[in-house]
């Protein structure tokens, strides 16, 4: 790793960490535009976070340390993930062979602590949300893993920054159909993991069928700020994996790469906003069908790439 890259990596990482609330803002503005409203100011999510951080937290007497640990562990897991995922440039802060497996486990760890915290409250409402979160998580994980497997086979690498780098660009020519399927499946995984419509509605926690918002109902103050930020960060990270997979950058564009990625991320947020505005949330018992569909897509992609070889 060259000196300059190391030097540049630090501001890049800082930018990545600063970015997520802005993406939430873009989504919110898009939805507002579709609804004929102006929407909140662009920086509103930052203000919200600032406000929450300053507040004190209220803890129920029935909760244990798990409840307090939940948001913190979740945020820590996602921050660690952020060091492993290439967001703006081709390179992540830390990279080693097999890092995709660590990423998958970190995501699972964050989810597990969120769920445990929700269960710890003893509220049946939150328990319900937790059950759903785990169910859908279980169903989207095979799809995620199969997608990563396809990319790994296509690029013959287990290192995320290589998997999503120029090799993938070459692989797109060889195995277009498989990678198209992967992109489709990843999009569904992204929407599920970040609790977006059509799987979950992030706008409200007042309906019985909500998932994520229901789980975090009892958190307040800095804890809730952590959770909100972590959710946005998760969207950014998974979104950039999707973008890197869908639109790999050839070497000659490396110079303007980060700028392009920024625009693409904004575009993705816009897309999510459009999807949320145009589609209705699925009935709860139809969600497994969607996730099964994603698993099938990625499974087909795996079969395809296994039978056709690569390059």
């Amino acid at each position: 790793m060259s000196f300059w890259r190391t030097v540049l990596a630090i501001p890049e990482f800082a930018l990545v960490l600063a970015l997520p609330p802005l993406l939430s803002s873009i989504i919110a503005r898009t939805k507002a535009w579709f609804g004929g409203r102006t929407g909140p100011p662009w920086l509103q999510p930052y203000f919200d976070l600032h406000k929450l951080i300053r507040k004190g937290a209220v803890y129920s007497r029935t909760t244990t340390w798990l409840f307090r640990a939940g948001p913190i562990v979740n945020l820590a897991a996602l921050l660690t993930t952020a060091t492993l995922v290439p967001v703006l440039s081709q390179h992540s802060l830390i990279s080693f062979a097999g890092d995709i497996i660590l990423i998958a486990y970190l995501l699972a760890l964050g989810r597990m602590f969120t769920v445990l915290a929700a269960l710890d409250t003893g509220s049946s409402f939150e328990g319900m949300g937790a059950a759903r979160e785990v169910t859908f998580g279980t169903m989207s994980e095979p799809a995620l893993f199969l997608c990563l497997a396809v990319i790994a086979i296509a690029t013959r690498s287990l290192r995320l920054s290589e998997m999503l780098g120029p090799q993938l660009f070459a692989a797109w020519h060889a195995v277009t159909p498989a990678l198209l399927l992967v992109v489709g499946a990843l999009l569904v995984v992204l929407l599920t993991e970040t609790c977006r419509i059509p799987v979950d509605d992030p706008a409200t926690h007042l309906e019985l069928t909500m998932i994520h918002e229901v789980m975090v109902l009892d958190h307040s103050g800095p804890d809730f700020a952590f959770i909100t930020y972590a959710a946005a960060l998760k969207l950014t990270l998974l979104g950039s994996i999707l973008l890197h997979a869908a639109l790999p950058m050839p070497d000659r564009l490396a110079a303007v790469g980060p700028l392009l990625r920024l625009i693409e991320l904004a575009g993705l947020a816009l897309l999510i906003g459009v999807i949320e505005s145009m589609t209705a949330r699925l009935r709860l018992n139809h969600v497994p069908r969607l996730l099964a569909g994603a698993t099938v897509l990625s499974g087909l992609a795996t079969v395809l790439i296994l039978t056709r070889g690569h390059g």
Partner: protein
Amino acid sequence: MQAILDAVFMLIILLDLAMLAVSRLASCIRIFAMQSLLLALLPLAADTLHVGIPGRHALLIAGVTIALKAIFIPRVLERIIRTGEIHREVEPFIGFTASVMIGALLAAGSFAVARRLPLAEAPLSDLLLPASLSTVLIGLLVLISRVKAITQVIGFLVVENGIFIFGLMLLPQTPLLVELGILLDVFVGVFIMAIVVHHIRREFDHMDTHLLAVEANSAGAASGGEG
């Protein structure tokens, strides 16, 4: 060109799976029509790839296929749904998620089998054989896992589509006469099926073949007024 062809075959498989997933009869028919349209373009693509311009043989086959399978048959089926006072849901024996999973397994199986089958010359795309096999298998799955007579017709049509894809490998070798005969037979067959479905609906006010079996058994043996 090759990438586009690959994508088309992939799309055909995905349409198969979508057929298993959708719950409305009208979407089933629309998916079938889309699949047929894709199929009809394949002979043209084959000729373009091999010779440069589509030959008369390919044009004729494509034209007849589009006219019959992508336009006429879907129209007839949609008419049956629209005019009939029938429940417009698919009503499977096997649940949607389960049938999609089975369909995916069948597709994966076809990939595995197709890999082992020896082919003398490279076909249009190496996805051709798996696409054909999985379309046939998923058509059979639709046929046996759905209750209604009209979905069974659609299943049969999907099987036919799979065979059509398979036949693409033999396009230059098959005489036009035979090919048109096959298309015509399918067409007449579906037409007669449509008439029978119409009668079934008139007779029972619905198109439910397994209920049909129950009622037919309970009806008296000497009920017929043969003359």
